[in-house]
């Protein structure tokens, strides 16, 4: 503890690092907490701060991240490392130029982003994607708290559209080096064969790095909801509506729409519903809005999966609904708070 204190104090004194002050401040604050006290009322405040809030989101992602390392080995670690390094660079540059503190939100984006990538993604694409996501998904809107779209999804969407060949057909079989062009969803779409549910749960089917081990995701999701960092309404409505829409759809159009449990356990649904749709900044804050958001995401996902050229619909449906978030809240508030006659 003392050596770290001395080291930080020393770094502060180096003149060349003056420009890097936001970085040092962030390190200092993360290591040693705050010496500030409340100014006025209330005289006491809750223990939680954004550091702890975001750490809990990261802790919830850890099981999925560990599973990705288990299934895809060193490559997964590299991808995560590149994502953090490249994203932090953009975040840091913005902090220096716009003279604000480094906000902790990036730490979550930096981990979510690699986990939704195929394990074969070249590292330079990882870097491009995360930088695009942080830059155009968050910073240009004014930084944390003001962004409209989930930054990790913006990055993912960008590289999917920019490099479709690499991003949609290069999958890797877990625990082997074999490259396959198909995921369970695309196999169902083309051949009508369903992967066994147990394999899907454990994660031995190909897919994005962190999305395949569904048990880890469910554990993380439960932790997130227990700690109140993630709200239960969106994931429950999202997954529930996918289930119901698929149940009805499969009944009438069995050749087009996959059965409900299969839909729930494939693709990025669980990961998206637990960790991306719940992003508080980009989802509605009102309770009614959350229900509407979750249900709409679910129906869109089933529609895109079944009727569009894309086999996966989670990413698109969340981004589309992100765009409607301000409108949803606006309408909910219109109903909840009637204008006052003066």
């Amino acid at each position, binding site marked *: 503890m003392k050596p770290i204190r001395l080291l930080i104090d020393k770094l502060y004194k180096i003149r060349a690092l003056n420009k890097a002050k936001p970085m040092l401040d962030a390190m200092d604050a993360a290591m040693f907490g705050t010496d500030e006290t409340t100014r006025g009322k209330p005289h006491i405040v809750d223990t939680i701060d954004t550091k702890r809030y975001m750490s809990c989101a990261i802790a919830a992602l850890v099981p999925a991240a560990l599973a990705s390392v288990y299934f895809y080995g060193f490559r997964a670690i590299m991808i995560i490392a590149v994502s953090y390094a490249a994203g932090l660079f953009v975040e840091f540059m913005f902090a220096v130029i716009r003279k604000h503190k480094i*906000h902790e939100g990036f730490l979550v984006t930096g981990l979510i982003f690699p986990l939704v990538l195929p394990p074969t993604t070249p590292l330079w694409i990882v870097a491009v994607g995360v930088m695009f996501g942080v830059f155009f998904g968050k910073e240009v809107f004014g930084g944390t708290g003001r962004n409209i779209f989930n930054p990790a999804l913006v990055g993912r969407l960008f590289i999917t559209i920019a490099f479709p060949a690499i991003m949609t057909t290069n999958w890797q079989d877990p625990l082997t080096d074999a490259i396959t062009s198909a995921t369970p969803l695309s196999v169902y779409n083309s051949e009508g064969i369903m992967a066994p549910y147990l394999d899907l749960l454990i994660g031995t089917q190909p897919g994005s790095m962190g999305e395949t081990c569904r048990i880890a995701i469910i554990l993380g999701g439960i932790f997130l909801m227990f700690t109140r960092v993630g709200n239960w309404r969106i994931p429950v409505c999202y997954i529930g509506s996918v289930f119901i829409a698929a149940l009805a759809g499969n009944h009438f159009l069995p050749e087009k729409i996959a059965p409900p449990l299969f839909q729930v356990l494939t693709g990025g649904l669980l990961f998206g519903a637990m960790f991306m749709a719940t992003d508080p900044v980009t989802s509605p804050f009102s309770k009614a809005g959350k229900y509407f958001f979750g249900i709409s995401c679910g129906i869109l996902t089933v529609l895109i999966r079944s009727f569009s050229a894309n086999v996966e619909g989670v990413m698109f449906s969340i981004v589309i609904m992100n765009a409607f978030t301000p409108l949803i809240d606006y309408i909910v508030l219109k109903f909840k708070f009637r204008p006052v006659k003066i």
Partner: protein
Amino acid sequence: MTAKHKSFSRGYAFKNFEGQPQDNFLQINIPEKVIIPLKQGFGDEVPPIVKPGDKVAAGQIIARDDESVSSPVHSSVNGKVIQVEQVNYSGREINAVTIESDGTDDFQKLDGFSSEWENLSAEQIGRLIYLSGAGSLGKSGIPTGFNSSIISPRDVENVIIQGVGSEVHNLSLEVLLRDGHLWHFIVGLKILKKLLTNAAFHIALDKSAKNLITEVTDFLADTDSFGIYSLKPKYPLDYDEVLIPILLDREFPHGFSSANIGVIVLDIQAVLHVYEAVAQGKPLIERTIALCGGGFRERPHLGVRIGSPIEHVVKDRARQDKELRFIRNSSLTGEALSDLSSPVDRTFNTIIALPEDTEREFLAFARPGFKRDSYSRTVLSALFKDGSDTFQKTCSTNLHGEERPCIFCTFCENVCPVAIIPHHLFHYVERDVIDETLLSLKIFNCIECNLCSYVCPSKISVGQYIKQGKQKLLEEGFECPSGGFELKAVEKLKSLK
């Protein structure tokens, strides 16, 4: 008659905080000098009727004005008036009388009191309560037929007795009501019932105080105008704005006083003062105050003469090794007592001393947090059940983090006791958008309980922003909407300074 259970789904329960007051009661000695502010509790400031050099007795009225909405103020000690001068008290300039005490502890009793209070008429009871000063207790005073409240005793439809301590630190009801005081409380209720003939009485008690609830229920079994309710303590249940909708199932006229809808809310100590005034002839010259918080070495309940300097109350009991912040009544909404020579008045219940914790902590954000409180369940103290004494939560003024932008976590919205959306209002006020949208978002419903600021992970003073928004609205000429209530005595409320 049995106690009815009522629940409150919003708000926040502060559990297992360190520094709760101990179970003992001590009478502290008479201070050498008291400073009596001439505005205490509900009502306007009253003009002094003594001058420097006058000899006064404890219990003697030293300031009164029967015309304005106010209650008389008494000397709390036997002695001599030294000076009458303007002081800054609780943020306003008011007159205060300084009295040098001779150290004796007897006091002058009120004229016309009777231990056989049944023989007194309602008018006599009202007069005793008014003259004792007890009429200024509660947020809107006790109507006595004099000008102690804005309405008359006949206008009171409901009386609520507030016995649920929902603050972080609370005065112990058990200490307040033992040694026969419970009987005084019951008699006090009956006295009030005789005065406020048209009123139904509602007594709210802490759910966990089972014995107290049974005893009160037994004592009041033969009467039918008393309803007893048990509630789980959840901050801010002691606010009229929160308690009235729960107990009476009617809306509170936000921006006005409960008296405007014929409801009076009193705490248990106020009822005891009523008993003392009417049956014992004791004017309001003494309060029971609990010392709370980790800044005190010992935390007894103290019988304190009104006007005693805070110094006199806290000295010898406060810790010397730490810098402390003294606060009156509430860690969330109470004024910081920066000047310890200022006096204790009728409105004091607790004096809280919190350590000013400026110490930095290695990896503070990652600590397990067995002893930390959080609305979120991100610390391990969330795993322990109510009332477990294994880990008492620490309580200091540390900010526990740095200010950050709002991330729409909706914690403030979930705890808000009046169901407005604090973070939404904050965004409007922060961007200086002050218009009728704020009115329709019910900004005037805010009761300034500061719970939103307490739970905020981004350490934003949400409550302060909302307060600012209200002030700016008023400056721009907007008015708090009266919302179609039938309100009594609004003019009188507005005439109050």
